[in-house]
């Protein structure tokens, strides 16, 4: 039937595959039954991906003259590249190999050994039929633009930007808020070292502000992304700040003179005020104010202009409009961070209803010396120091009603809060209500031990309710925290003055839209999905798009910094290479078959298909084509073919899969239903 000499390699993967699939039987069968489909050699290996396994393949290609290969092992998403490279080393075009999954799609998901073995055979038959139609392909080499876009100016984005900029490459750092800094700029101390957050962050922020290789675009958002790895065109909306940046000196007089006070929901977490023209905090980078148009009296009534009147450099521009910037970059790092879980969603904890229930972010601002209370820990009245504080862990985390996952940082943050209360109000009683204490990583448990010795009370149990309804003596005027102490098996009611809710982390409210904009995926919890959870944590399935920090999942500052640096290293590697090889999965038009009907012209979202008015046929631009194959399926004349997924290849695979009938083979005996 075919002149090809096909080799079939079946991996045992230790017992991962061989424990369920009878690999020896599959190999025997493939050697015999698939001979008519061109199989001249079939073999098994304990670990096909090992050096020995790969060498076997290479030797067989050379010695047995194999012209095509089918590797039946794990998912092609894991090892397709491994075996393609092995083919290449042996002088065989790597695209003449097909990999079929008999681990993820067979042995790991099926229990019945006979049925699994049968399915493995069918899957291999599909691969063998398909590979006969494979063509020799050459990867497409595309140049990599040396500039990088980083979205999000929190610590992960800052770290990534500095790593790349310091190595001499150009970076665009886009930040939605008026200043870089992110959540870290809001914190007072960082666990477990109790470093002052601003003291360690602001030097990096200042670097970003003056770095010759960093184009800082704050108060800006990415609106559109076009292109592919190495060659992205990004539209950035630079929102109108209402000032002339070249004239503003950041003196702050406008802010001082502005008569309009607004609750600062972003930087002060609702605990403090800002003006309608403001820089979010004193160390803001860039040190340029923005006018909050929604709250500015001038935009509302047409009067005021106090800021304009007092500005010494006449930098105020009320009529300024948003600016659209088009930038060309080769790679993109998304470091868009997280949102705090909204504690109002758990009404029994009373946030928003009981005045002295605070969120963790409010408490951070309260502890911050530059915050609304100048660092004193006080009740909502702004004056009274609490004599007792309850800190509730896992608010919105590890909770089936909200987020199933552990937010990873709240145990340590809560311990830090306890320490800060003890430091600033030494006589106060502190109660930590926890489910499990999670203090993994360097020096964290030591910090826990330290707080344990600071006379903090630890109660193991999820809090049922925070209430102001006093029932017992000593509860009047207090907040009562009701919880089961699971270590002594008793219900406890602890009256306290202040409650701090350690709210969990969750994905940005617009994470899904951002993911869509950049063509990457989100998990069910809406965190960005990495290419591999263990081995490729900062890359994504989309070439050229990397992720770092909490956008990928909850993590602490050291981990965010590590990911920022890791993503930068990946990008720098790309830039160093200068060009990248793309999968040659592309569509092309067979000119003599094209009738010029133009049906396909409407199917391409990448504008890769154009119509030649002179020849009256359709053309496909290979650089723009992303290889989805929709036009191939849509062409009524069969005039478009898609490499690696041609009609012949898919049909042949289908025919192979169906060549082993399902019915008789996997019919199983079931017991007769009981007589009624």
């Amino acid at each position, binding site marked *: 039937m075919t002149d090809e000499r096909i080799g079939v390699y079946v991996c045992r993967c230790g017992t991962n595959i061989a424990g369920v699939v009878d690999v020896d039987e599959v190999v025997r069968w493939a050697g015999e039954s698939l001979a008519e489909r061109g199989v001249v050699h079939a073999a098994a290996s304990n670990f096909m991906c090992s050096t020995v396994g790969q060498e076997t393949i290479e030797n067989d290609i050379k010695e047995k003259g194999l012209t095509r290969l089918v590797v039946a092992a794990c998912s092609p*998403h894991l090892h397709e590249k491994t075996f393609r490279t092995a083919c290449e080393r042996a002088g065989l075009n790597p695209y003449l190999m097909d990999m079929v999954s008999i681990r993820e799609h067979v042995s790991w998901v*099926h229990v019945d050994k006979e049925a699994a073995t049968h399915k493995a055979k069918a899957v291999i038959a599909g691969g063998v039929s398909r590979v006969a139609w494979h063509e020799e392909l050459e990867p497409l080499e595309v140049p990599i633009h040396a500039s990088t876009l980083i979205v999000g100016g929190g610590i992960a984005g800052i770290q990534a930007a500095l790593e790349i900029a310091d190595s001499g490459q150009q970076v665009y750092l886009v930040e939605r808020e008026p200043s870089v800094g992110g959540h870290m700029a809001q914190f007072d101390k960082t666990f477990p070292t109790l470093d002052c957050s601003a003291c360690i962050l602001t030097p990096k922020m200042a670097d970003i502000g003056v770095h010759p290789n960093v184009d800082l675009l704050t108060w800006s958002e990415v609106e559109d992304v076009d292109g592919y790895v190495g060659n992205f065109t990004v539209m950035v909306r630079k929102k109108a700040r209402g000032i002339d940046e070249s004239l503003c000196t950041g003196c702050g007089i406008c802010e001082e003179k502005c008569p309009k006070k607004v609750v600062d929901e972003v930087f002060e977490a609702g605990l403090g005020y800002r003006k309608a023209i403001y820089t979010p905090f004193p160390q803001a980078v860039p040190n340029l104010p923005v006018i909050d148009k929604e709250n500015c009296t001038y935009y509302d009534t047409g009067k005021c202009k106090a800021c304009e009147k007092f500005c010494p450099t006449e930098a105020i521009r009320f009529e300024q409009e948003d600016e659209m910037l088009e930038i060309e970059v080769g790679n993109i790092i998304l470091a868009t961070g997280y949102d705090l879980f909204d504690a109002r969603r758990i009404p029994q904890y009373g946030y928003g209803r009981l005045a002295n229930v605070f969120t963790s972010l409010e408490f951070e601002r309260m502890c911050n010396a530059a915050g609304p209370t100048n660092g004193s820990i006080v009740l909502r009245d702004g004056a009274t120091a609490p004599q007792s504080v309850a800190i509730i862990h896992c608010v919105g985390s590890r909770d089936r009603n909200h987020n199933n996952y552990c937010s990873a940082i709240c145990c340590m943050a809560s311990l830090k809060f306890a320490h800060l209360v003890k430091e600033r109000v030494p006589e106060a009683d502190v109660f930590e209500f926890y489910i499990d204490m999670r203090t993994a990583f360097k020096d964290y448990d030591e910090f826990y031990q330290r707080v344990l010795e600071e006379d903090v009370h630890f109660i193991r149990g999820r809090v049922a309710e925070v209430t102001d309804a006093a029932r017992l003596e000593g509860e009047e005027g207090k907040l009562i925290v009701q919880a089961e102490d699971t270590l002594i098996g008793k219900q406890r009611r602890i009256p306290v003055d202040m409650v701090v809710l350690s709210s969990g982390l969750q994905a940005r409210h617009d994470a899904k839209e951002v993911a869509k904009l950049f063509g990457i995926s989100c998990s*069910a919890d809406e965190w960005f999905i990495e290419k591999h959870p263990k081995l490729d944590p900062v890359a994504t*399935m989309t070439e050229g798009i990397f992720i770092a920090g909490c956008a990928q999942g909850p993590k602490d500052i050291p981990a965010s910094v590590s990911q920022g640096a890791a993503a930068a290293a990946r990008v720098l590697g790309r830039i160093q290479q200068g060009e990248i090889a793309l999968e040659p999965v592309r569509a092309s038009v067979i000119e003599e078959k094209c009738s010029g009907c133009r049906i396909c012209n409407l199917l391409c979202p990448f504008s890769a298909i154009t119509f030649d008015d002179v020849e009256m046929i359709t053309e496909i631009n290979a650089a723009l084509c992303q290889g989805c194959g*929709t036009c*191939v399926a849509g062409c009524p004349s069969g005039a478009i073919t898609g490499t690696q997924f041609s009609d012949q290849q898919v049909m042949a695979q*289908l025919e192979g899969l169906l060549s082993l009938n399902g019915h008789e083979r996997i019919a199983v005996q079931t017991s007769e239903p009981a007589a009624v």
Partner: protein
Amino acid sequence: MSEQFEPLIIGYTCNWCSYRAADLAGTSRQKYAPNIRLIRLMCSGRFSPEFVLKAFAGGADGVMITGCHPGECHYIEQNLKAMRRFTLLRSTLKQMGIEPERFKLVWASAAEGIHLAQEIDKMVEQVRALGPLKLPVLAGVNGDTAAVPIHPAHVEEVEA
């Protein structure tokens, strides 16, 4: 003791979401019926009606197309084109006497291994309840009876 009919289902999966969902089902050892055999496409938009017709003609009892959720397509909106094509094809299949339960479109993101496994199990159960695909003998234009292409396993049955 009785024999249970085991349907054979072909799944055309999108490389970016549901093929990875199937990978994830494997990684998390989520068990499902072995009756499905998957073919990877780059996008659900790549499936052409011939893929489905040939599967039925060649012995499949059901065909499942899987793709990214609407709005999450790796290629922006090609899954919507798959959906359009699917809807049309399903009504055509119905006219040919192929029950709608035999042809399914499932959205499964790369994170939805469990969801995909459940959908596979559900479809296997539904098709099992329908029994093997038997294309009916149709009356021809001239009143003659003409058999449409039949699953090889059932040729005898029809002739009898």
